[in-house]
């Protein structure tokens, strides 16, 4: 790899630094505000005077954060697991198999992306209510309503399809010679090769599940299965917003996501080396 010249390098560094500052400013504000007293947030102070570690303890205990946190984790894990598995399975035929109606099926799957959420909420709620009354396990106020509707994602299927299309035909030929069928090829060869997009999509699905607010509010009536996004909502009441506590809660809510991202982004450092191919 060529190294960039020093002048270019400094310019680049400055550019990246500016970008970094712009990108992180609200997060920094959120962090600072979470350590302020309420008065300081009112006075729009830039830096907290004394660091109010107590805000975190207060936010956690006053709104039963622990249980909401747990709910969010379980819901996100189920959603991510389901999405990755089902989308992987669906992307493969769309990318690498020939069957009648393939492009139409793809279009239909894409079509699910095109409807605004405002419109899908009511019919989905009706479906979930019906399922609640007609299936052996409960849907409303329970994990099925919160996870199953999202266990397939056109976005994920589409992305994985793009990647799978780029896998050379020779690999499939070689696998066939070894006696493997589509299923073995998919799970033993294609799956490992799709690590980067799978991890990416897994993380993005995790984030969207973690931040979801409208749907969980609709399908839960008790705190039993409510996620953390609802808890954050409670800090803004008619009596005015308690910004310092809300921001502390928001920081707590953001940390798992950041941790996950930090863990995953290491996977993107190197490209996949395709030894044994171009020999």
């Amino acid at each position, binding site marked *: 790899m060529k190294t960039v010249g020093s002048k270019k390098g400094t310019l680049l560094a400055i550019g990246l630094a500016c970008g970094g500052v712009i990108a992180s400013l609200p997060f920094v504000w959120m962090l600072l505000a979470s350590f302020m007293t309420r008065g300081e947030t009112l006075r729009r102070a830039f830096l907290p005077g004394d660091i109010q570690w107590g805000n975190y303890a207060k936010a956690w205990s006053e709104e039963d954060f622990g249980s909401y946190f747990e709910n969010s984790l379980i819901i996100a894990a189920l959603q991510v697991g389901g999405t990755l598995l089902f989308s992987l399975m669906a992307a493969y035929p769309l990318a690498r198999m020939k069957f009648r109606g393939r492009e*139409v099926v793809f279009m239909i799957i894409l079509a699910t992306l095109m409807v605004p959420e405002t419109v899908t909420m009511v019919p989905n709620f009706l479906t979930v209510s019906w399922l609640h009354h007609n299936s052996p396990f409960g849907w409303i106020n329970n994990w099925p309503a919160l996870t199953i509707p999202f266990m397939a994602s056109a976005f994920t299927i589409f992305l994985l399809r793009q990647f799978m299309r780029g896998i050379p035909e020779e690999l499939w030929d070689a696998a066939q010679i070894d006696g493997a069928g589509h299923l073995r090829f998919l799970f033993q060869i294609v799956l490992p090769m799709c690590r980067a997009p799978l991890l990416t999509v897994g993380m993005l699905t995790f984030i969207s599940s973690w931040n979801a607010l409208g749907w969980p509010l609709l399908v839960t009536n008790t705190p039993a299965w409510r996620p953390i996004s609802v808890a954050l909502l409670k800090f803004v*009441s008619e009596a005015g917003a308690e910004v310092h506590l809300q921001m502390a809660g928001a920081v707590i809510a953001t940390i798992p996501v950041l941790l996950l991202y930090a863990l995953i982004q290491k996977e993107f450092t190197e490209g996949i080396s395709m030894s044994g191919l171009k020999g």
Partner: protein
Amino acid sequence: MSVRASRLGCLAALGVFLGCGGGSAPSTRIDVDPDTVELHTTQPVELTFWYQHSRQREEALQELIAEFNGTNEHGIRVQGEYSGSYGDIYNKMMTGLQGGALPNVIVAYQNQAALYHEAEGLVDLNRYINSSRWGLTPAQRADYVASFIDQDRTADGAQIGLPPNRSLEIMYYNAEWLAELGYDKPPHTWAEFMRLCYLARDQPFSRSAHKERSLGFIFDWDASRLATSVFSRGGDLVQDGRYHFDSEQTRQSLEMMQQLITDKAAELMSGAYADQEEFAVGTSLFMIRSSSGLPFVRSAVEDGGLSFDWQVTAPPHAGDHPVLNVYGASLSVCRATPEQELASWLFLKWFTAPQQQARWVKASNYFPVRHSTARELKSYFEEFPRYKAVFDLLQYGKSEPNLAGYQVVRKKVEQAMVEVAQGADIEQVVRKLDRDANATLGQY
């Protein structure tokens, strides 16, 4: 292809089925006479109650609910749940009305309740109020402040909600600063108000940390503020069942706003709650807001570090007595089994009884809806004179229009106010607003 086609066919069938099923959710039913309904402790009724309160108000509410559950003689059990904001509750109700479970008791504003009623989801409480066995005695009925309970009555006389509390739009003012400006009493007329705004602009609050920024007032574009201003001048937003924005009082209100902003003695709010925040740190002299903000101002002024002496009073007025904007959400009962409906009514009756009212308003800083609550609040009044000051103003309350589609009109008012604040021609804005508002009358 055939597999796909049959799949689509299934989905379409499901769609039609659900659509029809959803559309014909229970609505044709015979209204049972409550006098004939029995409640047995052997079959305790369980109720769900959706509200939007959080934090301290929720705690107080849960305490009251727990007490009801423990002390009522019928074994009724109420389960109260935070269900999001008013808008979120509306969302849940909307979908619930189309198929899915409805709660028993909800918090709803009048226009929302009107919609639920139109969809035949609510109970007309008149049957229960007038029931000889379970209802209110004439004395109790008269104890409710008439204008409050009337707000929850529809045009055809159905009582679709019972008010648990009300709030007034009042004027908060920085008494310390006022004294610095040489006045010991708040302004009673709008002319005095304007004069004081100019004084405040030129002489910042001595203890303000941001003396370069000093204003008399910060305007909010909420339609309720305009209503407050118009009511205080003796006007109204409606006349003979039609909107009447093309009035002298509306013009005066808007002119005052435009004048103060142009002269830099006031500003338009730059974001939600900005007026509260700036008042709390001594940047603005006056604030006009709901009385439900009392607890916030109390703690914010302290947290802001200044702890200045602040007081509340009625906003300036034109006539000999003030006219204030009174509003608040009410509790409504959703249609369910006769036992559940009766149990819900009993909960509402208990909750609005004077003893409970006193406890509720002390914790929530809302205002009670029953005259006799004053008896229970004697010591509270002594402890919190500001609260008493507002309580005495309840009799002057006037409410905003209850016409269908008022929500839409509110949005138009907001836009009009912003336009005026930004310098538009008031005559044009007012005429257009009047036209647009009355155009909604036919549609809803």
